[in-house]
Each structure stands twice: as C-alpha cells, then as structure tokens.
C-alpha cells in the first residue's frame, strides 16, 4: 500500500530548451517557495550545493512593481554576489510582501566565499533572462520557467 503522494522535485532542468543556455522549471506552494526553489536551481547550475556551507549570512531587500520582475531581479542579485563578492549561496529564507503598488522581498541568504579546492564548480551563469520567462499560479501551485544565460 502506498497512497502517500510522491514528493515533487522543487525544480528540474529542461532538456529541450535553449541550446546554448540552461532552462529550469521550479515549483512551489507559495510565492516564497517558488522563489527559493528557483534560486536553488540557479545555484545548482553553478556549483554542487552540497559542497557549500551556509555559514555566512547575507540579508537582502528588493522591490519591484510585479512578481515576475522581482524574481528575475532576485536571481540576478544572487548572480551578482557570486562575481562581486565571490559568495556562493546555499541557504535561502525568502519573504515576499505586497505593499500598495509594489512587491517587497526580504531574504536572508547564506553561503560562503568561493574556494576552488572545496567547491565543485559547474557552469558560470551570466544572467537570468526574460526569454521564455514564466511565473504563474495554477490552483495552489506556483510555477516559474527561467532561461539562464551561460
């Protein structure tokens, strides 16, 4: 007997998408969760996350006029820390609130500085792009599709 629902993977990489880049689909029961899972897919593209300890905290705040722009900006912010501060992120606490005509994101990211010998590195991401972008809610499930430029 097995009537337990299978735990759905929080994200998957899409095989038949943009040839030179990487596309992923992330899901979540809440907006916070789909943001977190998208960020995990992004980091998974760049590094084996098991090798990154969430020991340093990095609080961030972002604001955008809609949820889609907020997600793209959130992902690009994480890409930015990788280059500007050599910081790899593996922990994501995300809180999104709608305030009047804007969406506010407060997140506590955590990770550690890039270390060549320690971290198993994959492909560098240049940006999260708007090509084929999707963020939608169907029933009680959020889905995001994002193409990362490699």
């Amino acid at each position, binding site marked *: 007997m097995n009537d337990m629902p299978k735990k759905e993977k929080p994200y998957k990489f899409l095989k038949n998408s943009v*040839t030179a880049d990487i596309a992923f689909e992330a899901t979540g029961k809440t907006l916070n969760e789909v943001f977190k899972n998208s960020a995990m897919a992004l980091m998974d593209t760049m590094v084996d996350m098991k090798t990154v300890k969430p020991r340093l905290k990095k609080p961030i705040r972002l604001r955008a006029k809609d949820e889609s722009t907020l997600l793209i900006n959130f992902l690009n912010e994480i890409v*930015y820390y990788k280059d500007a501060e050599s910081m790899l992120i593996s922990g994501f606490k995300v809180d999104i609130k709608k305030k009047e005509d804007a969406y506010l994101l407060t997140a506590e990211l955590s990770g550690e500085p890039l270390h060549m010998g320690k971290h198993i590195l994959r492909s560098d991401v240049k940006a999260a792009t708007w*090509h084929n972008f999707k963020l939608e809610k169907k029933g009680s499930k959020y889905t995001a599709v994002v193409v990362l430029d490699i």
Partner: protein
Amino acid sequence: MFQVPTKRPPLTKLNDYSWEISKDYKNDAPKMQVPARIFASKKLLDEMDLAVYEQISNVAALPGIVKAAMVMPDAHWGYGFPIGGVAAFDLDKGIVSPGGIGYDINCGMRLIRTDFTLKEIEPKLKQLVDSLFRLVPAGVGRKGFVRITGKDWRDVAQDGAQWCIKKGYGFDKDKEHIEDYGAIAGADASEVSDKAVKRGVTGLGTLGSGNHYLEIQVIKKENIFDEKIAKTFGLFPGQVVVMVHTGSRGLGHQICTDYVDLFRPKLKDWGINVRDQELSCAPINSKEAERYLKAMRSAANYAFANRQVITHQIRKGFSEAFGKNIDNMGMELIYDVAHNIAKEEQHIVDGKKKKVLVHRKGATRCFGPERSELANIFRKTGQPVIVGGSMETGSYLCVGTTKAEEETFGSTMHGAGRTMSRTAAMREFQGEQLQKSMEKKGIYVHAVSMSGLAEEAGKAYKDINEVIDTMDQAGISKKVVRFLPIGNVKG
C-alpha cells in the same frame, strides 16, 4: 510567451547557401518589417533548431530594421535574438537591443601565432597546459591578477587593450591586430553602474566558463587552404598557435542586465511592441540608447583588455616553459575579433551608402580588403576572421570579402554552433570519460568543471567544416587555415 514551432516556416531558396522567410510570415502586430534570411547549406538548414526561424522572424519585426534579419550557418536557439543573428537598424528610425548583442558584450576570439612546432611543444605539452591553467584563472567567479581601481577602470573603459599595452601587458604592435585597435571610440565609463564595476573589474585576465577556453592548436600541411594569405600571416605547416575565447566577464553581463531593466518598462512609452521580452530595446536616438551604447562600448573595451592580459599570461607561460624571452618566440597576435557587439558602420542599403547600427550576436565582422576600418596590414588580405570550433574538432582562420559587405553587412559565422542543449549534453556525456578519450586522441584538457566539460563535448556541436564551407562557397568569408586542438584550458 515564446512558442517553439513544430514545423519550419515556408522558405524560398535564394541560392545553394541562402534561404528566405517572407515578411508575410508574421502579419499580426508587431509584424515583420523585412524578410528573414538564413545562410546555410541544405544539410545545416535541415538540422537547424526550429526556434531559430521563430527568433529571427521576431527580430525582423523590430522597428527600423533594414534589408533583412539574418542568421549565419552556425545559428542556434538563444535568448531573444538567436545566436548567429545579424541585424542592422536605421539610425533615425531604428533601435538598439542589448539582447541582440548578448550578456557577454564583446565576447570574442583571439589568435596568437608562435615560432614553435608540434615537435618542440609535444614533450612539454602537459606542463604547458597546466601552467596556463594556473596563469589564466578559469571557471565560476574567479579573479584575475591585474587589480584595477576607479581611475584605472575609467582608463580601461576608454583605451581597452591599449591600456594594457601601456602597462606592459603586450607589445606595441599588438594593437594593429585587434578589431578597432582594441579601443572602440565613444565609450563612457560614467554610464556603467557601480554594481557592474564591482561585479566586473576583478575579472580582468580571467576566462570564465561555458564555451570559453584557451586552446593550443596545430596546423597540418593539408589544412592550409590559402598558402599565400597563410604566409602573409606568418602561418606554416607543423606550427603551433594559441586561440582564446572569452569576453567582458561580469562587467558586460551586469551592463546587459541593467539596461534590459531600464528599457523594458519604457517600451510602451516609446510605442515599441516586441515579440519576446528579451528583445527589449530603445530607439537609437533616445537618451537611454545613447547611455547604453556608451556603457556597451566600455564593456567592449574591457573585453579587449581582458584578452590582452590573457595574451600576456600566455606569453609568460610559454616563456617559463621553454626558457625563452617573451619577445623571442614569435608570439605575435594574428587578430582579435568581437562576436557579440553593435557598431555603427557604413553599408549599401537599397543601392545607397548608408550608416546603420549593425548588431552581431554570435556573428563575426568580416570586412573585405580596402575597407577603411582595417589596419593597413590587412588592406590586401581582408580582415582575419577567427572561428572557434568545439574542443574536439578544430577551429578556423578565414578572411572577409567585399561580397560579405554586400550580402551580410560584412558578417559571418563565429563558431561551429550547438546542436544539442547543455542539459541534454550533460545527460549524454560524462566529463571524466570525455577527458580520457580526448587524451587518447592527443588532446590534453585541464578543466575546472567536469560537468562543464561534458556540456562542451564535440558531438554537441554542428560539423564546423560544413559551417565554414557554406560561407566559403557563398563567397562571404574565405577559409585560410584549419587548426587542430592539442591542449585546452577550460572553466
């Protein structure tokens, strides 16, 4: 949302190497302004990603586009513009689109000759590749050894590779062998955000990852197709050369991100309707476009500087390995070309000379002889065109032609072009195995990432010979020499 079609749109054959999608193909707003033209042999056409046809006809619907939206034979599915896309816009009615240039502004190729032969290199190949791996940092988030501060950054943005040469990272004569002498006019560092500077300046002298690489290659006698030009460039059978593929690192990526952000919400005010959000753009005569172009040129110059610092490190690596002076190994630059860029150039449109803004995204400029932009040394041969193949199959040096100026806004292919997505390649190939099988074939690879290596497997790419022959037979770019890889440094 962008829909990938299930079948190819109707194509009209123009000749054996070019095909056209009529501008009636997309009649709903925003409708195609010009036809879309595909440069490909029949074989490459049949293998082309269906998304390419969709994307290039979306480009054909951008305001002020002239003549035709074009794709080169190495084209494949990208974001917004397809990779391998070429489009030129009227300076008054047209637009500039950061997505038509790419996140990696002035991603490009560099080719350096040497006096060494394969016989001389072979015994020390592994040592040499390992030392280049150490001297030229590769992979995710790496930093270079040249640290630049505020004033230096502004100088790099202005003077590009020439700044490096002044600082001792290169020979004075290098600059004649770089597109635009390694310093594109009209750059302005004040249009680059602090964020882009913070993200990017530490990357000077680094390769990056993805399809970026540094490769040691060899010329076989049977792979010289134009002896006269090869000789003019100082190339001979048995010779070893070095090829570099990289761009403007985090700096360029952030500039593209910043300006897509700036343009996207303003499209409505400008009355521009795009068929894909990643085609966001600004009217060329707007303040915003002017700011982007100044920032884009700053990143382009930074990319020239990046490849110049890497060249210095390569010369240093060879000098250490062979105990010779840096200037006594014949390690001169053949050329350096951008393949992600937009430039104002004069071309013939509707029978008249006209200045247009040419976007090349994964396409190389290939001017013919006598073109005034070229240094004197190339006025007889035409501009060198460096085409990087996959790390298993080889690369090419070609030269531009006058016909290219008539047909493709002086543009040609930039590489082999992918046929398999990265995700599919990663499932198909295994990095360690690939590394071993390449070593058996005589190619020694030192890579940061094994999964990254698998993504770059030769079989994930089109047949480069077919791509090169298409543009050679079409008379757009003539092949000169083919290079085979023997050593590779990868991110």
